[in-house]
């Protein structure tokens, strides 16, 4: 297993118990969607994996290495193996697009090189290629705050990928975007994961979008995993278990598949990507 999380628990200093012993394994190249209501602990979960938040107890293993106890340099080396994509893009707004993407290489270069922006030419070439891949090749010298939301998220994706990560941690990548851009961004992330055999955990609150692109869905509620399975398994009963009482027939897969002829098999789902 590429990522093994066992008994992950987080209690914030305020007393909020955000995660209550979560177990989860992700295979190499596997993309999962983490769904659940706001406050379920989705952000806390992925932040505990790259230790932006310190877990209270539990284990996180990345390719066999326990990363819950790492410190200093070892922790930074573990972090550079995990790319992160944020809901509000989290680009450094006063830096250029190229500087933002290259900041994904900070874990690989020394301080003075990064201070003078003298990144190795291979890194700069890699960053430029990725900008091309996300469709922003000619934007490299623009300042990040001159871009639209969808463009910023593309830069955020390039920054995460330039790290050469083994795992992507994606926190609500589409929550600040319009429906069309949301689909494009989800499609781009899933395509890139497939091209590069990348594992990913994608936090997302849009159930339909998750079902459309991802073959394994994990439902989180109040810090506990209440569903782990295929998108077809999200029956109205299961959705009620995750989100609480509501009329779920419009989101449930059988009704949706009949209504729109959506993908029922993984092959169809991948077709949808292209």
């Amino acid at each position: 297993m590429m990522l093994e999380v066992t008994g992950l628990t987080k209690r914030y200093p305020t007393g909020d118990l955000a995660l209550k012993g979560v177990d989860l394994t992700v295979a190499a190249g596997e993309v999962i969607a983490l769904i659940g209501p706001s406050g379920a602990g989705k952000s806390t979960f992925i932040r505990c994996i790259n230790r932006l938040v310190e877990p209270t107890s539990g284990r996180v293993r990345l390719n066999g290495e326990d990363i819950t106890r790492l410190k200093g340099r070892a922790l930074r080396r573990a972090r550079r193996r995990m790319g992160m994509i944020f809901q509000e893009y989290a680009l450094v707004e006063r830096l250029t697009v190229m500087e933002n993407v290259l900041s994904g290489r900070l874990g690989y270069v020394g301080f003075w090189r990064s201070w003078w922006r003298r990144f190795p030419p291979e890194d700069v070439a890699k960053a430029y290629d990725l900008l091309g891949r996300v469709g922003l090749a000619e934007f490299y010298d623009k300042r990040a705050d001159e871009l639209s939301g969808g463009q910023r998220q593309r830069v955020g994706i390039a920054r995460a990928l330039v790290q050469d990560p083994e795992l992507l941690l994606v926190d609500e990548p589409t929550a600040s975007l319009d429906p069309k851009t949301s689909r494009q961004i989800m499609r781009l992330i899933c395509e890139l994961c497939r091209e590069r055999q990348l594992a990913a955990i994608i936090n997302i609150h849009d159930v339909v979008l998750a079902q459309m692109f991802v073959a394994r869905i994990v439902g989180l509620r109040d810090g506990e995993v209440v569903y782990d399975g295929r998108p077809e398994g999200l029956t109205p009963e299961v959705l009620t278990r995750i989100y609480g009482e509501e009329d779920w027939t419009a989101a449930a897969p059988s009704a949706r598949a009949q209504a729109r002829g959506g993908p029922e098999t993984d092959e169809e789902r991948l077709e949808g990507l292209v």
Partner: protein
Amino acid sequence: MSSSAAAFDARRWRPPPLVRSARLRWLIGLGFALYLAVALGTLEINWLRVWEGLDRGWAFILAFSEPDFLTRWRDIRQGLLESLTMTVVSTVVGIALSVPVALGAARNLAPLPVYLLCRGLIALSRSFQEVIIAIFFVAMFGFGPLAGVLTLSFATIGFLAKLLAEDIEDIERDQAEAVRATGASWPQWLVYGIQPQVMPRLIGLSLYRFDINFRESAVVGIVGAGGIGATLNTAFDRYEYDTAAAILILIIGIVMAAEYTSSLIRARIQ
């Protein structure tokens, strides 16, 4: 509904007074007037001296109509150059010291002991007027520009580090967090996650402080800390009001020019 509408009289409405009780309001007003009268009584104004002073003041104002730049030109020039040097050196040294102090005084970066230490240093620098610090440094290191440079550098810390620390505390957290998530080291995190967010403010504050330091360099000179202030003081001591007027005109001109250019630059970088 109707009962509250009946209680409200649109013609008689006034905003509620600061002090509710009318008695207390009058008491406060009377007490204040009384205190003012007594305080004025203790001043013992010597009207004869006021009259003579008016005369001297008039002579001073007349001197402005014919300022004398030439008689003491060499002294003036030397004083101005010394002041400018003091300003540049103390601003540069002050910035160099302020940046680390500001990092330490930002609660979101520094651990508590460092934070308290840096905040203490800032409070110390801010609680003394420049002139008092200058007197202290003149007593320590003697007359001359060294005392002035030390004074202005120290005062710069209180100003720049405090305002910069506040800006650092206001940064966008997720921009900085995203840089940390890439595996950046702490200094790299500062340079990529923090510095771009506070740089415009740092430049603006530095230019602003440059103005202030030039103005203050004239003031601290009066207590012996070098610069144009010392020249000005000498001119007053010799009753050379025309020379003093020339010096004041030059100071005003330079301050205005510096303020104008720095506001231009600040407008550019915002």
